[in-house]
């Protein structure tokens, strides 16, 4: 920046010299002509940073098997534990879960539990006709969700 001003003043000095020599006073060069847009259309620009972008028209893609953006595993304080011996594969737990956390593994022929989304509502435990499910405190498990970063 400084260099520019220096050269500008140099040029001015030169110009002045010439002017003085010629004995004429030259008018300063007129400013650049602004377009109408620049004159009265100064609306600025709007730039939404990438991490704050909302999709066009608030239209989002549909999930396929699970909505990974909203995991609810840290809601539960108990989790259902299944006794595969007692289980009769009646599919009651499967049809009772609002969060579709029970599915049937065809190969293993066992009911499979979705730890990512179970909220621990215990409907499946309450409904199981074979008494194959029981509620176990979440924190009893090694992979149980730690709800507090610091204990009281």
């Amino acid at each position, binding site marked *: 920046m400084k260099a520019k001003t220096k050269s500008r003043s140099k040029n001015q000095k030169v110009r002045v010299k010439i002017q003085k020599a010629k004995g004429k006073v030259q008018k300063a060069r007129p400013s650049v002509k602004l377009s109408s847009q620049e004159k009265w259309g100064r609306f600025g620009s709007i730039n939404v940073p990438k991490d704050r972008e*909302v999709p066009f028209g608030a239209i989002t893609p*549909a999930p396929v098997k699970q909505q*990974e953006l*909203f995991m609810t595993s840290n809601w539960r304080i108990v989790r259902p534990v299944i006794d595969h011996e007692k289980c009769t594969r*009646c599919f009651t737990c499967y049809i*009772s879960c609002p*969060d*579709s956390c029970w599915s049937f593994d065809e190969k293993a022929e066992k009911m499979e539990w979705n730890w990512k989304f179970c909220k621990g509502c*215990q409907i499946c435990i309450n409904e199981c006709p074979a008494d194959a499910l029981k509620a176990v405190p979440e924190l009893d498990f090694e992979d149980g969700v730690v709800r507090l970063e610091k204990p009281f």
Partner: protein
Amino acid sequence: MADTFDYRKQILEPIKSLRGAPRDEMYVPGHRTCSGCGPALNYRLVAKAAGPHTIFIGPTGCMYVANSSYLCTPYAVSWIHSQITNGGAVTSGIEAAYKILARKKKYDGPFPNIICMAGDGGSVDIGLQAMSAMMYRGHDALFICYDNESYANTGIQTSPTTPYGANTTFTPPGKVIPEGKTLFPKDPPQLVIGGHPAVKYVATTCIAYPLDLMNKVRKALNYDGPTFLHMLTPCPKGWKFDEKLTREMGRLAVETGMWTLYEWENGAYKYSHIPKKYKPVSEYMKFQGRFTHLKEEHIAKMQAFVDQKISKIKAIAVEAPIPTPKA
């Protein structure tokens, strides 16, 4: 307009068993509904029955806000938010668009299942006008009233389907009004059956009877024309019961006569499950915190209301209940 137009449509087969139900989830895990949410379970069953070739319309309510927080939804099929006031109208627009797009050959797939998933308020209160007009205009779409008996999403306020005597934040019990809610509820299926000549099929369902529910959804979707389902969806937060009892509450509602499972097809009623002996309503109400303030005389009033409703049923032929899986 296009009544005689021949557009291809899927015919959905009845589901014979839980094991035989489609395994694909169209309402996937990952939503901010309450733990044990009845409407969420209902949505899952409806979406499962409808299958992938479906478009849902979601008027504002729990099944909009709780499901789609934030900027993500659990719908594996197309879905659009509508205002709580205009579920029926937006549904009509989508149906009409598909009719003309098919006619103009801009769309060549089978006609999609178009389902409006409105709450009780969005069906018979603020959304009544739009719902009725959709039924009247004869659109080939399904209007579902999922009934959690309150405006739940805004913190449990009374709606026209809230039962007599319920404690909601707009009908709190107090010295002057001991029972809380003094009004008896509207009957949504009767509103539809009563005066809409284009309606083909109306039914009531309950989440405690999932096969019955899914088959009624499929039956409704198979019909050409507007159909209406009134679906009981117990709400642990609003009704104030332990969240593990959601399905139990549904069962008790049917067993006490608070809820009647039936179908109405071409003028004839067909009942889906009539208990041999009805339990007293107190068996249902004792689990729910919204009724604990009620005195003997209020419960008696409720029983009288239910008895009167039940008495109308006994005169009509009853079908055997749909078998539930054995333990």
